[in-house]
């Protein structure tokens, strides 16, 4: 393939693609530089966003030209964010971060310090002098642990129940169906609020409450797939050699149902993170001073904080958005590969 022939998937040649990529990159970088120095007010975040998009698409095009085939930069970035965040969150207690949780230790720190001003606190401090970066990282730790625990419980419990319902059918299925529908009959956030009101707000309890939210959908997915797979020959063959029902379910159905379940799980993780942060925002989640993104954002509601110090909302907001966005993107990819029959949003 010569350099003057078009790249795969586009009428542009390598040279043209490189030029376009560089152009976008430059424009994007210029916009971001402008935002960081000159532009203020409402236009600021918008210009920043536009600049970021340009830089990313520019880089994507450069990569396309370099590798001679289209690179899905966004998915890789999303994966990088999620993995990076996960690693940092895991190692949080041992990282050399400024104080983010204990207000007495941070008494001497300046309050409401602006972020990105090259100080000791790269993302600023909140009203109690606690470092925002550290809080965001610990907030990530809380969110990720809670959501992942909830999803694992949801997949395991929901998957098993669904497989039983889908394979055994008849009365059991009917009963499970009614119970599942009963859970689904209550709007998710209401159910969450009700549960949170009863239980103590610990990480374990919130994870449990969230798992109650996901179990019904997992049951549905597992059941539908179990019904479909149960009609295939390999299940019939297992029964024909005398395998018990439990064995058939465990050895034949569960492994096959696992993939669509996983893709459903990937898609649900972001929903759980949103649910958990909403709960924290309402004050029903993990209480202060333990940071979660939700309660960090709700700090801005006191007095005129959100108007005077918008970064109190924006710093955890950006973390929240990037994480949810990345999980959404990865979830869609997972669905495309593992469960193509499901409805696409």
């Amino acid at each position: 393939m010569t350099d003057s022939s078009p790249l795969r998937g586009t009428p542009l040649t390598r040279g043209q693609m490189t030029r376009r990529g560089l152009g976008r990159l430059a424009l994007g970088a210029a916009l971001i530089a402008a935002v960081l120095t000159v532009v203020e007010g409402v236009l600021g975040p918008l210009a920043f966003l536009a600049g970021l998009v340009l830089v990313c698409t520019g880089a994507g095009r450069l990569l396309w030209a370099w590798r001679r085939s289209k690179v899905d930069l966004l998915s890789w970035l999303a994966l990088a964010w999620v993995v990076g965040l996960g690693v940092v969150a895991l190692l949080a207690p041992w990282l050399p971060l400024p104080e983010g949780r204990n207000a007495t230790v941070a008494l001497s720190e300046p309050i409401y310090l602006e972020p990105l001003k090259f100080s000791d606190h790269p993302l600023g401090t909140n009203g109690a002098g606690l470092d925002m970066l550290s809080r965001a990282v610990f907030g990530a730790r809380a969110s990720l642990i809670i959501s992942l625990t909830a999803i694992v419980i949801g997949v395991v419990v929901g998957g098993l129940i669904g497989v039983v319902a889908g394979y055994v059918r008849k009365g059991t299925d009917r009963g499970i169906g009614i119970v599942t529908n009963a859970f689904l009959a209550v709007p998710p956030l209401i159910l969450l609020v009700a549960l949170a009101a009863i239980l103590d707000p610990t990480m374990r309890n919130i994870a449990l409450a969230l798992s109650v939210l996901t179990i019904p959908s997992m049951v549905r997915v597992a059941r539908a797939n179990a019904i479909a797979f149960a009609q295939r020959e390999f299940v019939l063959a297992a029964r024909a050699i005398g395998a018990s029902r439990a064995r058939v379910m465990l050895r034949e159905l569960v492994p096959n149902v696992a993939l669509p379940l996983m893709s459903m799980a990937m898609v649900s993780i972001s929903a759980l993170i949103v649910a958990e942060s909403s709960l924290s925002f309402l004050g029903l989640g993990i209480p202060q001073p333990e940071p979660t993104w939700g309660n960090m954002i709700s700090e801005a509601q006191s007095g005129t904080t959100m108007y005077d110090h918008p970064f109190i909302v924006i710093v955890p907001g950006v973390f929240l958005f990037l994480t949810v966005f990345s999980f959404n993107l990865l979830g869609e990819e997972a669905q495309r590969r593992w469960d193509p029959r499901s409805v696409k949003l």
Partner: protein
Amino acid sequence: MNPRAGLNRLGELAAVLLLVSFGVFFMVTLVPGDPAVAILGSGKPPEMYEALREELGLDQSVLTRYFDWLGGVLTGDLGHSIVPPQSAVSDRILSALPVSLELAFLGLVVAVVLAVPLAMWAAAKPGGTVDRLVGASTFGLLSVPSFLAGLLLIMLFVNELGLFPRSQWVRMGDSFTGNLEHAFLPVLVIALSEVAVFTRVLRNDLVVTLQEDFVLASRAKGMPPWRVMVGDALRPSSFTLVTLLGISTGRLIGSTVIVEYLFSLPGMGSLVVTSAQNGDFPVVQGAVLVIAFIYVVVNTGIDLSYGLIDPRTRRVHD
């Protein structure tokens, strides 16, 4: 649909509602703490607590209390709040319900009004610039939790631009314009969380429909593109939209909770949250039950109306 299936459906519906009501009732009994102490305060003589407990019926078994409560519910008596002024739960609900319904309804309407043209515009040239822009922005919007979007909008409108009030509510009966002014931002927040989903699903559906032969046949009749889009493509795709409306009800109710909290609006969501925080369990029971009831009824209604709208699903007697 034939009567047998209809009866079955109704039976399942009743079973689900019963189960929900029991679940709600039972959950509340799990709340730690003694309601009698919560009402009277601590340090009182034990006989007072006993008397109150007997008065509230707390000395009976869970099942008995459940059936008592259920009996009351079926006659319209949802009990009384245990927090002063101890008004009737049904009164509290009746005053909070219109607020939430108005928010939800307006939110849906705004979302549909925004989503339908956007989806049509994007589907007209799949893969084109508009389509990709719409796809990217809706995907981004999907990833912003509604409380965050709400807060950002407040920061934008109320602070920067100085428009629209931050909180409180003006009833429709008192002032129409005042009502709309206070409703604008909350409705916008609610609509935003639905617009993204509606636009994406409708756009996908339209793209598929536009590839059908009858669309080509319509074009071949000389119909202008916008008429083909609205007259031919939109009609079959609207069934998806109707299903979407039903599915989004649950998310909508969640959004109203957040929005009512954000803007301090006296709706059902606030009612549930504050009474949950205060341990006012009769109100929690009643409110959650009413919400679940509405939700289930709406979903069933959507299912049934499907048969009315799509002539293909109607029974054809040849």
